[in-house]
């Protein structure tokens, strides 16, 4: 197991290196640069700035400098917020996104497993139809609609009750996190419901379930000990990368609920072609994702002993 993990970590590092290189090349291939702005500057000033930031050096040289800095964990200063280090940006804002993301995943996983199991158990009866209808609605309607509706519901709730029950936007306490993370997790919840349902449907007809029933095991025991464990594999497969995606990609939710997370930096960095922030956030996300995938693969072995990773 240890050897396997170490091998995976090594290949993870190589993957992150590939990600960084591809992004670096793409970034420089796209027209525009971080120094351009609405108010035009004289060629002399642009030249000066280029030199100051090392953007006038040949590309391979910039790449080597970037790699050596990255190896030391230094991603430089942002171009758009010129006094902030990229490391500080990630360090300040990632925990916010992570907290939001973890709660969102918790909602999504709890909801997804629960509803999915319900639809499988009550297949083709009313609960199944209602839940599947909600799932279809959930994935057909874009996420920013839910964010806007969620906030509107909060405003109306506060007005109806006359006091401020839940904050409409902002960050700082648990009550700030509840509705935003629910909205953030909705898409994943719908996906997990569906996966759980199809997985459970396959499992419910397996022979060992019939055996368990014949043995006289109680329904909850069959559900938790046999059905759930066998059906949950696809859910785990999806959860790993989803955790990475949700904790770094909650752009819309962060915008609508005024949450100081990392999501907006991902998007704004590309729009502003802020080289250092692009590289920093991409490498960080890549590393996080690779780590999540490694954890998922290891968990496979624990959940389903039949799965053997060579």
């Amino acid at each position: 197991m240890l050897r396997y993990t170490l091998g995976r970590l090594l290949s993870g590092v190589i993957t992150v290196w590939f990600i960084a290189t591809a992004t670096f090349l793409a970034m420089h291939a796209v027209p525009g640069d971080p120094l351009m702005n609405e108010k035009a500057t004289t060629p002399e000033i642009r030249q000066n700035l280029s030199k100051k930031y090392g953007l006038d050096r040949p590309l391979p040289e910039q790449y080597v400098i970037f790699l050596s800095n990255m190896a030391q964990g230094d991603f430089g200063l942002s171009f758009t917020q010129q006094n902030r280090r990229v490391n500080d940006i990630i360090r300040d804002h990632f925990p916010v996104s992570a907290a939001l993301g973890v709660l969102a995943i918790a909602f999504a996983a709890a909801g997804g497993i629960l509803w999915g199991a319900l639809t499988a158990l009550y297949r083709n009866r009313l609960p199944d139809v209602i839940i599947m209808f909600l799932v279809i609605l959930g994935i057909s309607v874009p996420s920013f609609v839910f964010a806007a509706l969620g906030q509107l519901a909060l405003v109306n709730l506060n007005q109806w009750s006359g006091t401020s029950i839940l904050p409409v936007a902002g960050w700082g306490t648990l009550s700030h996190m509840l509705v935003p993370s629910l909205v953030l997790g909705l898409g994943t919840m719908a996906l997990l419901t569906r996966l759980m349902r199809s997985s459970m449907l396959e499992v419910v007809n397996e022979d060992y379930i019939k055996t368990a029933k014949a043995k006289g095991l109680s329904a909850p025991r069959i559900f938790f000990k046999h059905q759930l464990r066998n059906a949950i594999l696809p859910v785990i497969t999806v959860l790993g990368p989803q955790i990475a995606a949700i904790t770094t990609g909650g752009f819309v939710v962060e915008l609508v609920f005024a949450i100081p997370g990392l999501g907006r930096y991902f998007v704004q960095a590309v729009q502003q072609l802020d080289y250092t922030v692009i590289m920093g956030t991409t490498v960080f996300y890549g590393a996080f994702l690779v780590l999540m995938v490694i954890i998922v693969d290891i968990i496979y072995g624990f959940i389903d002993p039949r799965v053997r990773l060579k």
Partner: protein
Amino acid sequence: MLLSGLPNFIESTMTLRLIFCLLLCATQSQGFADAVDAASATVKIAIAQEPPQLNSMKATDQVSIFVLGHVMEGLTRYDRRGNLAPGVAERWELEDQSATFWLRKDAKWSNGDPVTAHDFVFAWRNVVNPSTASEYAFILYPVKNAEAINQGELPISNLGITAIDDHTLSVVLERPTGYFINLTAFITTFPIQEKFYQSRRDSYAADAKDMIYNGAFTLTDWVHSASLNMRKNPMYWNADAIKLNAIDADYITADTRARLNLFIDGKIAYTQLDGETYKDALNNQFRIKKFVTGSVYFLEYNYRPNRLTRNQNLRKAIQAAFDPEEFVNKVLQTPGNLPGRSLFPTWVKGVNATFRQEFPATVNKPDLVRARALLEQAKAELNVENIPPLIMLVSDSPTSTKQAEYMQGMLKTRLGLDIKIDVQTFKQRLAKMTSGDFDIVGAGWGPDFDDIMTFGDLFASWNLNNRGRYNNPKYDRLVRVAMNSSDPTTRMTAMAGLQTILYDEAVLLPMYEQGVIYLQHPKLKGMRRTVLGSDPDFTYARIAP
């Protein structure tokens, strides 16, 4: 299991509602209590984005200008009526070749040090220093040698500014500049204490503790992307006149609907509405206010060789077909926007009254017959059967795309002209504008200082912001006349000449002058909306009890 539990579920929610209602009777209705507080003289607001740059020598965006206008002060400032008033400088004298400022003795930094003339010398030298790469360095070009220094031709010590003593500042001008005093209210000219700056170097203005303040407020807390807090500055020379104790920007989001929701929820005291959210505001019976921001939006044409838009009749055909009133009323849909008639907006001052009152712009009545005739002439001159599609470059914001779609539909229906809309993300659009890869581009310009020159030189051939590379020696000559003279009548007449050229040759297509609508908490008084400087201005605001 779920179904059987349903009656219990309903019962339990009924109980919950009962408890809520009891609580409702027991507790006071909070309503608007959070957004303003008369006892502590606090106001809570939301800002649109994290200020990217609080270094006054380099800041260019709205939010940074808003913050800096409250926490720092220049030689002059704006009073509660929006007129230029003494700031750090008590009085001044302006002549053709020089300006002298006498600074007040009780102007202090928040660390107790006095604000001296040396602070202005240090700041201005840094602004024109090419290695600072300040985008607003051009503001100081009327100062002697400023432009040469900025091009790297002279050392910064040659800048025409000297501190005669701690409280007297002398400026030598490059040429007679009647509006020079107006420039000293702009943030780029704010003072910076050299000692403090050198102690912070690269991290100057990175955080609240990395700055010192000489304005009506100080920045006490800054949690990046989350909140910004300003408190009344006890060291400010006019602290007695400042009634607010705190301005708390507790929310940072660019989403107008989110800010409206915060306003409805009573968490912030001010928010701007846009074309979609104002309808939601109407439903809530709020008092909506209106304000003209002073910016103009227009379409720029490409004058580079081999571009169809070089043809004057083509441009005039478009000008004749476009109805700015229909555009403002049907497409923009918010009150406050004025139909675009000229590069110079209505608020710009002329000799004695506003410029547009003294030199009215031609009101263009849309005339399809004339437009089509002009188009035929253009086709003949360009030697084509049909004009090939023109490329309109727009940014990827929803409003720009909507306006471009309107133009596309209108020109197709009325003139049979094909427009292709080229949507580009921010940097890619800038790259295309600089390289000239467009036929028409949507552009706007906001005023930097209170003088007609801020719009006047936009289409001069040497101006880098003239992305279409319009080059007319007659135009350039008139601009120079206005730049080099200090007689108001001469300058305004030259500008009127420019206005005529711009219309007759359809150099640009003015679309509208921007107006905005906004909501303000009824207890918040004295908040000033302004075309120049930090907008809105809370310096003279107070909370009614």
